[in-house]
């Protein structure tokens, strides 16, 4: 009888582990990030950041990608970049299943790397010119075959990076919040702020009050000192906060998984009003003139008076809505889980556009309005970027192979 020795079985297991370490394409675990300036749209998806012309003769054509070719050490891109006049700050996940994370400062003209900041001490060695801050998570001692003796921290940025002047802010899945110099990548706070759970929401900096507002999945809204990251106040909202609040006239408006939107004093977090919704509110509410517009994951869109929370109208145009609406003078634009985009009359919530054919994929990320164009980046679709007119007519689409 043919028998397999323990040694041979061990060899098979070791071979399996070794092959698994080679890894493959990281799965897309979140929707593409989208941001834009007047000339270019930036889509963070799969393993690259795509810059796409949205104006001029080259509209709908790719301008550049970062990195030029997918790089397993950099990993996937999903969080929306922060777009400044001289720099784009974008976060990458790091190698698949390790999520060591890194943040890059790029030249908006050509996508060339200006600086890099590794968020895990071990990842710093794998990326050229990419130091880690002194407080970066350490993966612990490493055994042969790359076996680490410590649980890696999840250093991914989920939502987006935000900019205020020359400072970029971002929160991580491990609950850390960083402030870095957007032009050099040097950390600005003595130590990152640490929330109890993941920080998916982008930090909201307010130079007027010198505070940064951070929502966390740990149910708390934190106000941090803009210069040092020190905690100024915190307020428990009883449910996870997955998107940043919006600030207007000293009032913070924030949605929670507790199925409500709250208005809080930006000075101390005290509650001004709260309105219930049918389900979780995941996207950032939008303030436009005296109105506040938001959507819930059950598919409802709400318009309320920002000062009182009193309802103006609500509508249910289609399927589940994850993202914040885009609001123009005429319309409230939302994209749903089934790939359909809707324009609602801002005054009364009535449908403005004829029924549009759904895009392939899901519209889970927020639409972005630039000038007379509405941009959406479908998740798991044929196209990375689709442009609509303000009347709902599709103008053009961009697929990854174009312009490469």
């Amino acid at each position: 009888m043919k028998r397999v020795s323990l040694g041979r079985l061990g060899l098979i297991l070791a071979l399996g582990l070794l092959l698994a370490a080679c890894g493959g394409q990281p799965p897309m675990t979140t929707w593409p990030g989208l941001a834009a300036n007047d000339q270019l749209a930036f889509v963070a998806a799969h393993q690259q950041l795509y810059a796409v012309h949205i104006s001029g003769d080259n509209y709908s054509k790719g301008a550049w990608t970062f990195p030029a070719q997918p790089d397993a050490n950099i990993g996937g891109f999903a969080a929306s970049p922060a777009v400044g006049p001289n720099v784009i700050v974008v976060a990458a996940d790091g190698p698949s299943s390790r999520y060591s994370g890194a943040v890059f400062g790029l030249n908006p003209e050509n996508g060339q790397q200006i600086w890099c900041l590794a968020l895990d001490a071990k990842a710093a060695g794998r990326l050229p010119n990419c130091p880690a801050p002194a407080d970066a998570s350490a993966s612990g001692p490493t055994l042969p075959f790359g076996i680490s003796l410590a649980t890696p921290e999840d250093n991914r940025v989920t939502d987006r990076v935000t900019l205020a002047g020359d400072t970029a802010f971002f929160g991580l899945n491990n609950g850390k919040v960083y402030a870095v110099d957007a032009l050099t990548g040097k950390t600005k706070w003595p130590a990152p702020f640490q929330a109890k759970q993941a920080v998916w929401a982008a930090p909201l900096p307010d130079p007027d009050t010198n505070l940064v507002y951070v929502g966390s999945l740990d149910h708390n809204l934190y106000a941090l000192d803009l210069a040092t990251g020190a905690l100024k106040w915190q307020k428990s909202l009883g449910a996870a906060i997955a998107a940043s609040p919006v600030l207007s006239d000293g009032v913070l408006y924030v949605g929670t998984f507790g199925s409500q939107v709250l208005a809080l004093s930006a000075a101390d977090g005290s509650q001004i009003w709260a309105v219930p919704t049918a389900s979780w509110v995941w996207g950032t509410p939008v303030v436009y003139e005296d109105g506040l517009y938001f959507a819930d994951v059950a598919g409802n869109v709400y318009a309320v008076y920002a000062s009182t929370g009193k309802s103006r109208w609500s509508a249910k145009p289609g399927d589940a809505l994850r993202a914040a609406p885009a609001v123009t003078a005429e319309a409230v634009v939302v994209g749903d889980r089934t790939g359909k985009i809707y324009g609602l009359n801002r005054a009364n919530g009535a449908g403005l556009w004829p029924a549009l054919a759904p895009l392939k994929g899901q519209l889970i990320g927020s639409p972005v309005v630039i000038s007379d164009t509405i941009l959406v980046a479908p998740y798991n679709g044929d196209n990375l970027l689709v442009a609509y007119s303000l009347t709902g007519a599709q103008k053009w689409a961009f697929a990854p192979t174009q312009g490469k």
Partner: protein
Amino acid sequence: MDIWGIFILQPMLNALLFLYQLLFHNFTLAILVFTILIRLITYPLTASQQKSTRKLTELQQSDSWKKVQEKYKNDKEKLAQEQMRVYQEAGVSPFGACLPTLIQFPVLIGLYQAIQQAMAASPVQLFDLSRHLYPFLPNAASLIPIDSRFLWLNLGLPDQLFVLPILVAVSMYVQSKMITPPGTGDQQAAQMSQSMTLTMPLMFGWFSLSFPSGLSIYFIISNLIGIAQTAITQPVDWKNVFSFSLGPARAPAVPAKARRKQ
């Protein structure tokens, strides 16, 4: 929502979250209790499957079966007819073990999906979860996100120390070896069966390298319960279980009680 979501995934997911709430917000404990409950509910099916497998194995080791095999070894059609006759005479259905397995399959897939969705390790998974929660689940909003820390593990990420993938492979191997019928004389079939006994655990161990740790924990618990169930309900040749063989397995030692009957 589709039929699968309404009747399988959604009830399991909400039950799992309810257990998480009851069990001190410890998700590993919730997986443990939930897996035990599901195994208890599906026990009649498991027992029926094991009984059918045992009867089939006993029949295939009988003299009448061996005689038929020998007599018609060169006439496949006649052999098939004779085999069916022997099955009928013995009152054994060759598919008796399949039906209970088929019924259990959706339950196991639903359980797997419920655990994966409850952990909601990524934003897309959490978005899916939001659509499957019952509105009457008490304090559902306060449960999210699930606390994913357990020992050295982040339950939403693979185990970097490879402890869980190894435990998945080993526990699955032991369970497979316990339920694999011994050789019936057909060398090729027996070798294939033995090869599967080794390949499947290695494959699941391999998958576990990239699965979230929470799922690996579910596989290990499920395998251990399977091992315990089998050990309690049927005689086990432990020596055979822990021998690493690619060849046909030995026939199990006949229990004393059975020997007396002979």
